[in-house]
């Protein structure tokens, strides 16, 4: 029997403000900004979540592994279960499996860990998949070549930005989707369910723009750490993840204050 639970928005002042904005027809961007403000504390908690930290560690290490002549072994060295010549599907599935393993081993579970896991699989599928002919048509060599491209300065900045953008949009949707459906109907915010498409697009755009802030920092930190330490351990990932989150949240706050 497939059962599904739905969440309910908290009755805090910040979330009541969001509902108020939805009810009064405020601009999509204002609603998204207000929800970012309401979700701020929860987003910052991600820095303490081992699944989030592991997702960041994989995010940094998968492209780096592609610089190795033996891509499969390099991926296995960072904890992924793959064969010698992994395809993109193998890569995405093994990254997701690894996060499940960390969740089990650390006995640490939270909704943020799940959202981070989704953000990682989405980023791998999307960032890498977009430059491949198709998910199934790409050869293992194609996959390694694309992953390798992500490992250089320009690649890693876009790659990490996409992950944090997906994390932000996933987190905001996690909250907002609890209430958006009741905004559908004549005389309401969305005349029909299709009108929500535009809102979702605005949310994705907002999330993407808010993560511009980490783009340059990501490439500088990546290069500096790689050349200083030779790779990225869990501690490095925790540091980078926490700083990137802090920057992103601070940017969300600035955007919420219409400071752009």
């Amino acid at each position: 029997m497939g059962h599904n639970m739905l969440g309910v928005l908290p009755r805090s002042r910040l979330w009541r403000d969001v509902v108020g904005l939805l009810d009064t027809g405020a601009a999509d961007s204002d609603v998204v900004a207000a929800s970012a403000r309401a979700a701020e504390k929860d987003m910052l908690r991600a820095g303490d979540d081992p699944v989030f930290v592991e997702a960041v560690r994989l995010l940094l290490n998968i492209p780096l592994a592609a610089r190795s002549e033996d891509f499969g072994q390099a991926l296995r060295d960072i904890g992924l279960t793959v064969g010698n010549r992994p395809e993109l599907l193998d890569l995405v599935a093994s990254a997701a499996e690894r996060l499940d393993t960390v969740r089990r081993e650390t006995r640490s579970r939270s909704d943020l860990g799940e959202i981070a896991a989704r953000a990682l699989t989405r980023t791998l599928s999307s960032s890498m998949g977009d430059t491949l002919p198709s998910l199934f048509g790409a050869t293992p060599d194609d996959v390694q070549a694309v992953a390798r491209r992500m490992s250089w300065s320009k690649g890693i900045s876009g790659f990490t930005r996409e992950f944090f953008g997906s994390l932000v949009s996933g987190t905001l949707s996690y909250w907002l989707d609890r209430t958006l459906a009741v905004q559908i109907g004549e005389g309401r915010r969305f005349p029909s369910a299709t009108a929500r498409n535009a809102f979702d697009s605005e949310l994705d755009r907002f999330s993407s723009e808010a993560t511009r802030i980490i783009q340059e920092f990501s490439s500088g930190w990546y290069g500096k750490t790689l050349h200083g330490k030779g790779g990225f351990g869990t501690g490095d990932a925790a540091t980078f993840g926490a700083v990137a989150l802090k920057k992103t949240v601070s940017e969300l706050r600035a955007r919420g204050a219409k400071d752009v």
Partner: protein
Amino acid sequence: MFEAVARVGGRTQPVVVRINGQQPTFRLATDSLEKKALLDLHPALLDLMEIAATVFAADGAIPRGGPTRPNMGEDWYRRFDLEIPVRNPELWQRTEVAAALCEAVETLTGDSVSFRFMPAEPGPLQQRYLDFDPAGATFRADEVLLFSGGLDSLAGALERLATTSSRVVLVTHRSAQKVIPRQVRLGQYLADRFSGRVLHVHVLARRVEQAAADSTQRSRTLLFSALGQAVAQAFGARRIRFFENGIVSHNLPLSPQIVSTMATRTTHPLALTNIRRLMQLVVSDAAPIENPFQWSTKSEVVSRIHEYGAASQIPLAVSCTSIREQDKLYTHCGACTQCFDRRFAILHAGLAEHDPDEIYATDVLVGERLSERSVTMAVEWTRHALRLGKLDEKGFMESFGHEASRILRGHSDLPPKTALELTLKMHHRHSRAVHDVLENVLRERAADLVAHRLPETSLVRLHLGSGDALLQQVPEYLRRQFIREPNGDGDEVDEIDEVPQPGAPLRVRFYIDEGSHVVDVIGLASVTGRSARVPHALKPSFDEDRRNGVAPEDHQYRVGTTLPDLTDMNKGTIRKLVQRCRKQLAEEYRQLHGEPPPNTC
């Protein structure tokens, strides 16, 4: 007497589980069986039943936090440390067995569990969980079917009985008084129709004198698999079958708000694979557990009932689990995903005459939805189903990559590509079925929609609109995508690492993106928005001085308010923006290099 203890993270009082016997906290038993067992139950199987019952009892004893999911669902994910007496501690303490057990429970529940096993007190080996009659007749079964009395298990039982000569034991959980009479009647229908080939076993598994604090019973599958295995052994059956359509079995999240086990994994491929592996580890001749409908949609499953001549039994099969809302008239709430799955499948299969509107408290398509939850379910379930039809492999992995990974692991017997293709094709067929039903409504009820004769919160009006805003076709729902900036350099990437050195000159990039000013300090920071406007405004003068070879200390002094791009700002604002820009860059420098910048910018 069996007594287990479950210690729960964050709670001082453990949950004590006593199954049957004196002062029981949990009752586990079958109705009296008029048949005798062919074989005594394997001790490991008895252990497994007791372990699974302990997990089930603990699962129901601890609430999962409120619907607002405070602290990002912290209370949803419970932590159990279970101490359980067993007949063979060496077996259960084996690393691979303990790991398989944990994985089986954690996949189903989303909780974290650990087990400690100790020797059970000497006593009678057999517990009377299965109430056989030693003087009864023999029933030799070929397979055990876990029979909930819903449409899928009815279709499955029909298929096995109509297309094979198998003798089957139907194992049914007596979960709720309201549903039991229907389960009994369906079992009787099958027994009458396939005379001598059906034995119906009812199992009671319930907390004693305490309502469940968590009624979702996510660990139920483990308990019923264990019971199924015991029944299989007792009657010589070689297979155990769950019947659940693949769409519900996968139970993909309908919306980003649904995470982890908020969507149940009752018959998820990974859950069944884990349980199968566990059973193989603890009982050498364990009957394999299968879900023959794993690649079928609900509509395809329901069609089988008609195909096997049992459409008249559809009204008896209950799909809805909102038991509290059921009464004699309404057996389905019409507001949960099970009701949506059922109704759309039946309409698509052309079997509406066997599923009267009147059984739904809320008509699934055209009924008024009075609660926010009902509206949200109707919107999200339909959006999700329609969106699936537009996804290719990559889109599916982007949208459901994490869940897809679990599905693929549940089909480890198939190459991942094959499993993904089968998955996607099935979800496409499901999407098409939902699309077709809505298209049919659009054709048949357009006049009602135009005239606003259907309730505003009805599923069809929420999706198709009404009056002048009536859509002319079934809506499309877009896949969520990260909005990536176009890469002007094509696919070429310089193979360099940006390795910023402390004190090295900064390199900057000025540009405007979608109307917003941006200054990138390469490998350090991006300054955006108003803070970036001041450096943008100063840049022409700076460039001019550089072109003319002017030393930095002799660069032009410009009054901010006189700069063409800053005329809307006063002196104080400009000063603040400059300070903010400096502060940001200094902070980012410190974060990167672990030391303050040598000079302020």
